[in-house]
């Protein structure tokens, strides 16, 4: 045992090296740099000499940038999108798990947005949300409400911008949830449903007592992945609203990119990324603890 470990160690290191180098170069090193830079006054194309400024960037980030609002938006985004998208994905998965004519076609259609570039989808939805009575959504709502709907500029309305981005995101990502949950559904033995039926469970109770417990692990996976994606929202915001109006749809990453690259305030952007890292780490640890407590079901 000991000898085996001893002789295997060099080979193990050798095999791990490429991955480790990549991890170092593209993840650890940039992050370490970000931490260091966040304590400086680095600006792009600035004539000022590089100086250590302590925690100034952190205080300023919270006082003078849209970071607090962006964090709140991200939180809202996650609180709405994660449950809504998961519930919708589950509903679609359950529906498309039944024998249904053309079910492969439907599965493909619902999954299609996942493989499209997000930027393309964002552009399409910009057209859907187009302002004025001729905008696709406005016109549709107008017809459906017999003209009672008042056309609005969704993406420039502080109340509608964030929900519009959420809707786009849900539409784009729900296919992913659906596919993962469909695979999970197919792994549930049919006989469990039959046993439940014989035991006296109707359709709804079969769903509660067989389907949901059977989907526990795929559901956990989907929720974790969607949560992480919710905090990483960038493309939609960049293309559809640029964070506006008045930061109503701004997100942390978008604000970070804007500060660091649009405004050239690299050190401030770095400070935001460190703050964001701490937040994400906290969420990841909380989820981990929560799930470990409940244990795995084999």
């Amino acid at each position, binding site marked *: 045992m000991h000898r085996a470990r001893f002789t295997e160690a060099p080979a193990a290191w050798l095999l791990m090296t490429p991955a480790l180098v990549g991890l170092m170069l593209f993840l650890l090193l940039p992050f370490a740099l970000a931490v260091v830079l966040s304590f400086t006054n680095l600006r792009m194309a600035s004539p000022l000499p590089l100086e250590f400024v302590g925690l100034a960037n952190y205080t300023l980030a919270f006082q003078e940038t849209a970071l607090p609002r962006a964090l709140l938006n991200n939180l809202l985004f996650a609180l709405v999108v994660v449950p809504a998208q998961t519930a919708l994905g589950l509903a679609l998965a359950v529906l498309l798990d039944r024998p249904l004519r053309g079910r492969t076609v439907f599965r493909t259609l619902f999954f299609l947005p996942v493989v499209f570039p997000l930027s393309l989808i964002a552009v399409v939805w910009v057209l859907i949300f187009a302002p004025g009575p001729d905008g696709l959504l406005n016109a549709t709502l107008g017809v459906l409400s017999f003209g009672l709907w008042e056309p609005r500029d969704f993406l420039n309305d502080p109340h509608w911008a964030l929900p519009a981005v959420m809707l786009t995101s849900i539409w784009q990502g729900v296919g992913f949830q659906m596919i993962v949950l469909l695979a999970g559904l197919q792994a549930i033995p049919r006989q469990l449903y039959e*046993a*439940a039926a014989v035991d006296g469970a109707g359709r709804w109770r079969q769903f509660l007592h067989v389907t949901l417990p059977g989907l526990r692990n795929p559901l956990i996976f989907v929720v974790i992945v969607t949560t992480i994606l919710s905090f990483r929202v960038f493309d939609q915001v960049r293309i559809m609203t640029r964070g506006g109006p008045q930061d109503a749809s701004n997100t942390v990453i978008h604000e970070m990119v804007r500060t660091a690259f649009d405004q050239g305030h690299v050190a401030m952007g770095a400070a935001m990324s460190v703050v964001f890292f701490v937040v994400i780490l906290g969420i990841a640890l909380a989820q981990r603890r929560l799930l470990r407590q409940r244990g795995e*079901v084999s």
Partner: protein
Amino acid sequence: MADVEFRAVRKAFGGHTVISGLDLTVQDGELLVLLGPSGCGKSTLLRLLAGLEQATDGEIRIGGRPVDALGPRARNIAMVFQNYALYPHLTVRGNLEFPLRMRGMKRAERERRTLAAARALGLEPLLGKRPAELSGGQRQRVAMGRAIVREPDVFLMDEPLSNLDARLRVQIRAEIGALQRRLGVTTLYVTHDQVEAMTLGDRVAVMRDGVIQQLGRPAELYERPANLFVAGFLGSPPMNLLEPAFERRDGERMARLGGTWIRSAAGIPERARYAGIRPECLGIGASGSSDDARADRLAIQGSVESVEVLGHERIVYLRAPGSMIELSDGPGPWRSAEGLLAARLPASPALEREESVTLTAPAAELHWFDEDGNAIASGAG
């Protein structure tokens, strides 16, 4: 408690008929075994009764009440599945309680029944465990417990022992038999294992291609198989089925079996076309001239092909002249084949491969079957 009645039940999947016009009555409190090869429709019959499938035609009654329009929930049956189908996320207690919870039973009553079932099956120490933590035999008991806790009108068991190893199977088989007798619940038990069928069943229905071939007490099936299929299915090894040559001499019909002309004392039935002899009816005899017409004794000479030593006895397979028939899986219930004659013999004397042996049996032990493979009752010539 209730009896179960199938009336002209037919089931087709798409255009493919699995069960064609089946009539069957299971008496109140009886354990009836459906026995047959895989694909014979026995499990489908069970699923029809459970309400997991809908009959294409015909009527099913439980306790005199037609249940065709009722879902599984309303039929008050309990089922034990081949792979047990225990709820993996529930503990043993949760699994046992599940059918009671689904019926909205009060907590105290639930508790009482769950404990009673657990006690009856020795599951008390396992109540807090999940199915994944249990052995195969324990899971099987939990599945049984989940069935009995409801006190249903009918038990359905779909190959409940097939996932257990041989020793456990014998033990649990006995437990199931004892439990069923004690509870007296009408039980329909599906298996492809004839030993299970013979040992457990009050009556056994042998099925093939969705048709009941014979229904009767186990001994009855063995001693008086109704047709070639039942004869060739039951027994290990099953009955030797032979295709004799017939000839009429001095007005008496004679059959040439394995090189010997025989005439049974009672005469060979007029319609006889096939003959059968159980392996245990054959014994080693003196070899005689094979052309002699022996009055009432069968003598088949052949060479030993293989010997299976079972300890207290041996199964000897003999290559003998004359045509045999075997049950076929394809179209047509049987076909002629150059088969081996099986004989169940005592452990001594030793027999070598290729050794020439004469096996004899009283002609009265022969079973006779007509052109269609149906048994001809002796003396009914």
